[in-house]
């Protein structure tokens, strides 16, 4: 009872949806990078905190906007692509479970 070999290419819609999930995974990494950036700005003792405040809030709002842009696509139930989803998994001997396979 081996699982059938996964197809080499995916339908365009499914492919898009997978990349959307990748984007969702990368978003917090981008956020962390941007929020740690002020630490590299050198000695801030000369100037006040005004600039940093504006920077942090702008980054914050941009991250929220990006998340809001991605969320509806991620929440959509996977109808067409999902039916054959297991079939598209690489045969991962159950090691990682592969629940989020590309």
């Amino acid at each position, binding site marked *: *009872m081996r699982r059938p070999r996964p197809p080499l290419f995916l339908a365009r819609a499914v492919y898009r949806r997978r990349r959307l999930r990748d984007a969702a995974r990368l978003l*917090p990494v981008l956020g962390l990078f941007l929020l740690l950036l002020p630490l590299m700005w050198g000695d*801030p003792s000369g100037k006040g905190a005004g600039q*940093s*405040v504006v920077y942090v809030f702008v980054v914050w709002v941009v991250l929220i906007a990006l*998340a809001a842009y991605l*969320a509806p696509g991620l*929440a959509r139930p996977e109808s067409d692509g999902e039916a054959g989803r*297991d079939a598209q998994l690489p045969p991962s001997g159950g090691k990682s479970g592969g629940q989020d396979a590309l």
Partner: protein
Amino acid sequence: MHSCRRQVASLGAKMPFNLLVLACLAYVAFLFLVAFAGERRAAMGAMGFLRSPVVYTLSLSIYCTAWTFYGAVGYAARSGLEFLTIYLGPTLVFIGWWWVLRKLVRIGRQQRVTSIADLISSRYGKSNILGILVTVIAVVAATPYIALQLQSVTQSFGVFASETPENWALPNHDATVFWVAAGLALFTIVFGTRNLDAKEQHHGIVIAIAVEAVVKLVALLAVGIFVVWGLGGGPVAMIGRIETIANPAWMIQPTRWAGLIFLSAAAVISLPRMFQVMVVENVEEDHLARASWAFPLYLVLMNIFILPIAVVGLELMPAGANPDMLVLTLPLSQGQGGLAMLAFLGGFSSATSMVIVETIALATMVSNHIVMPVWLWLRPDTARTGDLRGGILLSRRLSIMAVLALGVAYFKMSGGSNALAAIGLVAFAGMAQVLPAILGGIFWRGGTKLGAVLGLSIGFVVWAYTLFLPSFGEGAMLSAEIFRNGLFGIGWLRPQALFGTEGMDPLIHALFWSFSLNTAAYALGSLLSFPDPVERVQGVSFVNAFDEESQAERLGWTHGQAEPEALLNMAQRILGDDAALSFFETETAAQGKAGYLPDLTPAFLAALERRLAGSVGAATAHAMISQLFGRATVTVEDLMAVATEAAQIMEYSAQLESQRSELTRTARQLREVNEKLTQISAQKDAFLSQISHELRTPMTSIRAFSEILTEGDLPPKMVADYGQIIHAEAQRLTRLLDDLLDISVLENGSVQLNLGLASITDMIERALVAASQTRPERRFEVQRDPTREAIFVRTDPDRLVQVFINLISNARKYCDAEAPRLRISVRQKGGRVMVDFIDNGSGIPKEAQGLIFEKFARLSDESRAGGAGLGLAICREIMANLGGTVAYLPGQKGAAFRVSVPLRLDPAAGVAAKETLRV
């Protein structure tokens, strides 16, 4: 500054303390109403708005406690931008929901997780040791935090009560704390322990918290807008003002900035109250997608005015003013009494909502992982007897009071000192110690119980030694000697410089060491130990939560010696009669059978265990089923799948096995049907002879007596007597023929229904009167609940009364108890009315339960009291015509029948129901 003081003094007169207390009480009463309305709507099944993502997002805002509402401004005044880290961490976690939160919510729903302790205990083989460990950590970390909330409420009362805002002392703040805590306990008990829900959700509380979330946001925004536009001269001027501040304490410290972002990110996943609203109270997974950006947006709005309030507050208020109370004192000092009142209610909301949810989460853990196991251990027979629901609810309520009492005690012990202000981060760091066990548990199949126990206990001990105990100050918990020279004089064990790391900030130091050692112990313990089968199966189903296939092969129960009826009895005592019966009914229907007792397939037992776990936690549910079931076992297939990763061959045989058991089940069902058919055929023969017999007996006597009468010359008294006998026998014949006619009309579906509106009370009354003629010599006690009976239904009242009469007179006839008692209970559920007739006799034996609704099925002849055994058959046909059902209810310690009718009978639907029945 002098004018400022004068203004405040004059305000004291404008804003009487009594008015404040009154507003506060009115607000609390309003919350009670909101929660009550929420519960009502949920009970009626009209959830609508309650289930919207907006409410879910707003309920998440209990992350922002009074520590945010008052403390953030103080934090900003002391150390500038750093306070934002507390909200940036959660933002990253939420916009990255696809990583962790999505999986947590999915697992929470699949496993019916009731708390964070339950999640960890369930993942590592339903281990109760882990449940206890996490519960202890949660209680220790949360108690000071609850105390902090109580302190903020008393302090804010103090601001209004005292003449000048700089003086916090409230004459009797002990009394304030006591009354606030008592009020919160009442609210939590009323709405948190109303029922033992299958999934531990509290709709009333969630809606109240959503309302409080709006109040605190509006309050903070109002104060902020007043400060920026009213006092600060607009946003541009405000930024310029912030720019000019050159306070060295305001410099961003890189390690603290990064460390605190990490800490708050860890905390938002592992705080018990966040877990409660995020996972346990989640009604739909999709809501998380919306909350992934809406909750960070809420956080931005909460924080956007914090820095301006702090800057303006520092400028305008006297030097000694408590920066933690600026949100209140700033509007007060500007003569804005109304605004201050709004701010006060906002702070009050933040504190109360946090305390309520935290208390529920902790009480669930304490009750499920400590009280219940101890109770079951002390009295093992309670799993089989006695009503457990009362016990569980009682232990919940006591736990709620205990948790709040701990908070009050801590508050009194620490004397409301400023040491509490720092406790927020300390509590975060303590609770975050469960993070490695959670993340490892949901992403790494190799994580084991031993690893989790080691990691948690080492992390907890290091946290307590390096952060919690030192937070009380030198000489309070740890002596100054230990601070200087380390434990036992070992320099490497100094609490704030473990292994010689002296240069670190104390908080970052504690965070660094507790997390490093915790994670290392978890990883090492997991690598070196070997998990037991239950753990491995749970591990697979947690890590592969999104893989449908692996969800199918879960931990199962092999066939043991338990009877379905015993399981039903146990389930009834935990879930309640109704919920248990409907659960068993659905499961039976899913197996393609009728009635209430399903086959004990592994799938059914796993479903039952998960359902029970929703009420008493995974470990307890597992233990209870294994008590009834003999031994806790996994199926052979599971063991095989676990034992070897190359399970492909086994999978095939497992499929064969499942097909085989499927076949066996089908064969058994066929056999059951066949048995029934044979019985019915025998009945058919019996029916004919029965009918001839029933017709012949009266006929014979009529013929005999009429013969005598035709001979003539009899005394008139005898003529009258014989005439009487002939009349009575003719009546009996008519009744029998009526019955037969009735049933054939009903069976053909050509019956004419006279629909009308009638109350259940009246119909039961009528039926009781009519049925009292059956065995009138017996004393018969009838128990009813008139308030629940007051339901009007649209149906054919005469027909329904006929059914009631039949059931009641059956009880009168056949109930063999010494003191016969009949309980009639009525309830309404999902557009249907259920009327249960339950007597205290010996009930109907299992093998006869399938037959009693057949024609001429009289179980015994011993107490024959007329009638031809058509009663229940007629009842069944009537109910089918009324669009309802009548069925035997097993497991009620007596004969019990349930009549279920629709609230409104739609004539077409009645016929349709009838048609499907016929097919």
